[in-house]
């Protein structure tokens, strides 16, 4: 039997691939590192691959359709909005992400921003540093956060941690908008589910969005949602920039429709230095690093490698994102807990 080809696409071709090799040590695989500079090069790179591990934006339909042997496409990141999942499903390729890889970090970033906005830490630091002015009045009123309402949009791994940390930790009334979450998860976390995004916006003092970016979530927070928010509300985005309609947010901030924003992500990244959001004193920002930590740095390759290893062993990977693909798999890569044994003799 020939070795299975694991093609690793990334910015360089001399990565020692420690985690990749360790997780697949029991498999007969060979690693091929490629650093495509064009879609054409990416297409050439994935041809004949049994597995694709991807850093960077090469998950286009053309590239995926060229991967006619691939069983799995693993991204190292949490988001997979840059992957044409439908094409992958059509090709019978399981798409995996780094689910849970940095939920701790991203939720911490969201909590940090909520607290920083509430306590106006960035603004007070700037005033003292720049002018030495001891005047507190620009920062008042400061509301007691334990009497305020938290609104979480998207109740996946990250949203649940935000609920646990900020909702339970600071004893905030917590609202959740997520049409796909099971009712028992809502009960387990002791939160209130609302079924209208505008209701969440109208009732919350902090609106935190933690959803994947897809056609359904693109610009889901736009002018209409900002119109529903309280003038005292803070809007926090730690997921993907284009979940927010950024021009609408800029308008809302300029018009005083909300009190401020905490933004880890932008519609265009790196953010244009002339973006008006960077000039606003009531907006605190970071350069899309919510997921970062020394642990996330090694969890990403470890997790991605575990996903690929599972698929090459004939198992359904724990972070498979397109379960519809099983229709193309003919009893391979069956899901745990389902009928029969995985890859059993009779399958």
């Amino acid at each position, binding site marked *: 039997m020939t070795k299975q080809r694991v093609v690793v696409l990334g910015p360089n071709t001399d990565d020692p691939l420690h985690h990749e090799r360790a997780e697949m040590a029991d498999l007969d695989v060979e690693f091929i590192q490629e650093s495509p500079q064009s879609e054409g090069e990416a297409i050439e790179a994935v041809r004949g691959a049994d597995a694709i591990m991807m850093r960077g934006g090469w998950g286009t339909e053309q590239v995926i359709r060229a991967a006619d042997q691939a069983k799995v496409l693993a991204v190292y990141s949490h988001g997979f909005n840059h992957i044409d999942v439908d094409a992958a499903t059509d090709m019978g390729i399981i798409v995996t992400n780094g*689910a*849970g*890889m940095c*939920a*701790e970090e991203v939720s911490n970033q969201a909590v940090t921003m909520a607290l920083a906005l509430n306590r106006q830490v960035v603004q007070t630091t700037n005033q003292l540093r720049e002018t030495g002015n001891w005047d507190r009045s620009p920062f008042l009123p400061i509301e007691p956060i334990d009497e305020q309402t938290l609104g979480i949009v998207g109740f996946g*791994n990250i949203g*649940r*941690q935000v609920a*646990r940390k900020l909702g339970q930790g600071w004893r905030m009334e917590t609202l959740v908008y997520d*049409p*796909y*979450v*099971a*009712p*028992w998860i809502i*009960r*387990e976390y002791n939160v209130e*589910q609302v*079924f209208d995004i505008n209701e969440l916006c109208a009732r919350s003092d902090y609106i935190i969005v933690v959803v994947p970016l897809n056609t359904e979530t693109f610009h889901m927070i736009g002018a209409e949602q900002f119109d529903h928010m309280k003038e005292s509300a803070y809007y926090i985005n730690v997921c993907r920039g284009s979940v927010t309609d950024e021009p609408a947010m800029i308008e809302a901030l300029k018009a005083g429709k909300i009190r401020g924003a905490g933004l880890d992500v932008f519609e265009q990244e790196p953010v244009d230095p002339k973006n008006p959001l960077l000039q606003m004193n009531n907006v605190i920002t970071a350069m899309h690093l919510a997921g970062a930590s020394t642990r996330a740095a090694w969890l990403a390759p470890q997790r991605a490698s575990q996903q690929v290893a599972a698929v090459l062993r004939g198992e359904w990977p*724990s972070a498979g994102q397109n*379960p*519809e693909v*099983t*229709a193309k*798999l*003919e*009893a391979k890569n*069956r*899901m*745990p*807990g*389902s*009928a*029969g044994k995985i890859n059993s003799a009779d399958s």
Partner: protein
Amino acid sequence: MNTESENIRVLYLGPSGRPGVYTEDLDQQSKAAKEMGAEFIVYDGNSEGELIEALKDADVAMSQGHGISPSLFRHMGNNGRCKGLISFGHGYDGMDLDTAVKHGVILANTASFGTEEVSNQTMMHFLVCSRKFVLHDKLVKNGTWTREHLAPMGHIAGQTFGIIGLGDIGRAVARKALAFGMKVIAYDPFVSSWDAKEYNVEMVGTPQEIAKRSDYVSPHTYLTSETYHMVNAEFFDMMKATAYLINCSRGPVVDEKALIDALRKKKIAGAGLDVFEQEPVDPSNPLLKMDNVSVTSHYASYSETAWNRANTQLGQEAMRVALGYWPMSLINPDVRSTVKPRKWAVSWEVMLAEQGN
């Protein structure tokens, strides 16, 4: 009212064709169908032939204690009008998943309806065992006021609670045990590491490690060929002599003969049991005579809230399947490989809005 749902027919199967268990009026079970303007039909036949005919005229079926023969699946799913079957309750030990997958029959249960209740029953048995309540209740009622049987008695805080199966119930038990200041360890090969972390549970690699380290062991698994007699003589041999076994899952997860033997030989300190290998339990079962064993009659999941919730969920899941959505609690996910694509399951309130109600 949506015209699509007006033509939907939901078939209700009570025990052996009779109307519902415990709730004769079927208000909860039929609520979702009525909200959507679908037809709710109570099956009243008595033979497999009649049932096959009834399934041919239904879009989905729900069962509350009605036996389901795998041969029925041949007339459902990809071979008939009835796309799926929703079963009341949690366990699906009687269900032939392979046959259902083969014929494209979508199966769902009423997941998590009794998570609070079962985890509370577990904590109750755990406390009753730990505090030696059964013995002392009996002694006091018989006029004996003594403290001579107290030792050994654990401190609970700082002791180790071992969970086998960290699903909804296992997690609720973990949350409650943590509130008692206990160390919680769990064995579950299917759980994600980040979930374990989220619940502050230490995952262990083998059931044996649970046996060796725990002061209280509690399985919360389904009954399958893999979990049948998972807690057996070998397992009891590894347990501490001061440890207790709690079982609120399914009787045959524990080898009952081995449990009786372990209790007689004082290999473990006692047990708390809601379930038995044979139910109703034989009145001569030696477990019923032991002062270090607390017993209840398989009602761990019960409260009016929980059962109403299960009945409502039963109806909602049926409408999801009938209207081309996945159910919230799909129990045979491999069926995705044998049926056409469907819409993601959404909250009931969202479905009502989507269907124009």
